[in-house]
């Protein structure tokens, strides 16, 4: 079976894809929509899903055969059952009608953006204030979202809204798949301290979303949302692992930097460099153990340590990189300096973004160590009575 499949995909890719130009064979340039349709139609985009929903009903292991072939051919569009958050959520939680209406569109379009955080709802996502008010077959949306990546390109957004303020906060939330390309949706990039602007603010004024685009049920959006972020965490975790610098066989960046700047004879720096390298390698080893545990038992509490550990690693490496470079790090005229300064700022992306270190520690203490849950004073009172700044 595996060999047959491998052969089939190889043949298909050879017939359809140009690995040199990284586009459809003969086309000369890459047209995302056109190519994704081909991949989805062939059943290669979401192979673990049933045929009814554009898949092949394969096991995850067999699905990897397809992914590996795609990666070998440098072809795009694989693994959307693992990485396309919007599609996965609709697949898992949408009605058949909703799936019929949206799934193909989602799978063949750009990825969905995430309309979760708000200026007043960061760590406390259940505190969202963006209102959704029923109006005939639609809901009318008003509010502001923040830290949304890909908001400009996205055709849909996964939107967390408040639909009832008279009940406790978790009970008045509704989760939508929200059309982004409409009047009343304004996207403004956020200037980040790294010099990047990958994130946006999204201002929503009297925008509309059909009631049938609710994911899950009215006022029960928090539970649908949990499913969505579980997938997100999985993706982030994988992202972290693949971002690891200094994987097998490669000289770790910090070691190379120290070598290039002739600092490997400095005994004080040696200790700091060694410890920084150790923290990174220890996290790799922890994540390897996590992988083995998942393979054996289906889950691993170790996986939840990776993001927190990465904060110490990234902030530490940036700090030591600066020490290695010396005062020249103040001047952004070499690649080493630019990298060190960028990395120092970027490290906050890990320690703040996607749940701050402090939130991660709460989660680890409560879910992994089973320490008693903290009291959330805003949990059981009507949302309209929750204090805010």
């Amino acid at each position, binding site marked *: 079976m595996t060999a047959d499949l491998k052969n089939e995909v190889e043949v298909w890719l050879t017939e359809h894809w140009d690995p040199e130009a990284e586009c459809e064979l003969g086309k000369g340039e890459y047209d995302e929509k056109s190519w994704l349709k081909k991949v989805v139609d062939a059943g290669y985009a979401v192979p673990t899903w049933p045929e009814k929903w554009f898949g092949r009903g394969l096991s995850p292991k067999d699905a990897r055969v397809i992914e590996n072939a795609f990666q070998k051919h440098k072809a795009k569009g694989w693994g959307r059952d693992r990485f396309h958050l919007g599609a996965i959520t609709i697949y898992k939680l949408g009605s058949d009608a909703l799936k019929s209406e949206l799934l193909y569109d989602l799978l063949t379009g750009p990825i969905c953006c995430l309309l979760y955080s708000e200026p007043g709802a960061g760590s406390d996502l259940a505190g969202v204030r963006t209102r959704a008010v029923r109006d005939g077959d639609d809901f009318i949306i008003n509010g502001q979202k923040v830290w949304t990546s890909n908001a400009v390109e996205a055709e849909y957004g996964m939107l967390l809204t408040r639909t009832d303020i008279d009940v406790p906060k978790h009970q008045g939330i509704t989760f939508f798949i929200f059309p982004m390309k409409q009047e009343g949706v304004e996207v403004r990039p956020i200037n980040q*301290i790294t010099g990047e602007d990958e994130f946006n603010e999204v201002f929503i004024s009297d925008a509309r979303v059909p009631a049938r685009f609710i994911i899950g049920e009215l006022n029960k959006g928090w539970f649908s949302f949990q499913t969505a972020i579980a997938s997100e965490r999985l993706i982030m975790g994988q992202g972290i692992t693949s971002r690891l610098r200094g994987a097998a066989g490669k000289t770790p960046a910090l070691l190379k930097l120290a070598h290039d700047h002739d600092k490997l004879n400095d005994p004080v720096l040696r200790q700091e460099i060694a410890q920084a390298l150790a923290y990174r390698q220890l996290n790799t080893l922890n994540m390897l153990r996590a992988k083995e545990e998942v393979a054996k038992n289906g889950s691993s509490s170790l996986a939840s340590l990776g993001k927190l550990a990465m904060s110490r690693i990234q902030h530490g490496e940036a700090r030591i990189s600066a020490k290695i470079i010396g005062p020249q790090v*103040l*001047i952004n005229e070499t690649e080493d300096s630019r990298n060190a*300064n960028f990395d120092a700022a970027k490290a*906050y992306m890990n320690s703040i973004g996607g749940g701050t270190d402090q939130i991660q520690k709460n989660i680890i203490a409560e879910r992994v160590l089973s320490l008693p849950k903290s009291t959330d004073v805003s949990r059981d009172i009507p949302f309209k009575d929750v204090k805010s700044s």
Partner: protein
Amino acid sequence: MTDFSEEDREAICDMFRRLLADQASEEKLREIIETPSGLDKALWQQMAELGLTGIMIPAELGGIGGSIEEVEALMEVAGASLYNGPFISTSVIAPILLSAATNTEFVSALLEDIASGEKIIAIAGCGRSGDWTKSPEVSAKQNGSEWILSGSACFVQHARNADAFLVATAQEGNVAVFYIPKNAPGLDIVEHDTDDKTLRLSTVDFDKAQGILLEGVGEEQFKSATQSAIVALAGEQAGATRQIFDLTIEYLNTRFQFGQPIGRFQALKHMAADLLIEVESASSSARHAARALASKAPNASMLAYLAKFTCADNFRKVSADAIQLHGGIAYTVEHPAHLYWRRAQTGQWLFGSSDRFRDLYLSEMETAP
């Protein structure tokens, strides 16, 4: 020891604080750093009118005759606003070096120009190491009655806006200091693209440029000026540390999550309490060092070195944690936290690294009476 009473000192600090509140808001700073010079010259002139540029210059030369204690206090005020003018170079290091020189007439005129705000002086004090306690990389050769300077000085602050430089040179192990106007032939300024946009750094190259020797100014005088400079910087960092800390505490009190101010969460409280020790330690070290320098106490060098690495490291720590405590909002360019944090990175290296001064501090301890 200073002749200023504590009240006098507080009065000039208040004056400076009001001036900065009026003329050097965060918005203004963000404008200024986008200009080619990166300096608000009008503000410098206003400081001169208030006597601040001549803080260490005697009254008879137009200054107000303060000591490093007044400087340190003013720098705390400056640091809180991330003030970015050439105060340490022009009004601290230059007057100390010039006052030590025996070619009195020449230096008196210069000191008057500094006090009046007419001249901005930049200091070329170190080579590629950035370390003012190591030998400079500019050399001076006597040619008849002339002195000819060659070599490069690195990490020179405010070079573009300077009217003249004081240049530390080394020959045969001896340090000498020269005055050289900015437009002198053979002097070339290379401005750099700094990560901290509030401070400009340049390399100044000397190719047989002619300088005027500050007579009688040698290694000891240069060391003494460096010690005052690092204490002034420490004061600036202590002030900046306190300001970003206070902003953070304010945010903890006003930002609500989970129906309460986030400052009620114990983990954040504990971070804040730990940081308060760093904030107060920075202030204490800078102030005590200034006092010891002003009174020529035997442990003045030790305290100056302690202040140098303590204020540099604590500013870095507090400003870094301030971003974390703010969360996402401080990840945006519009929020001031990263301005403090970047200034703190710069401060890690100006005059020399924390590791270097930690080592010197220990050496002072070893030889303490």
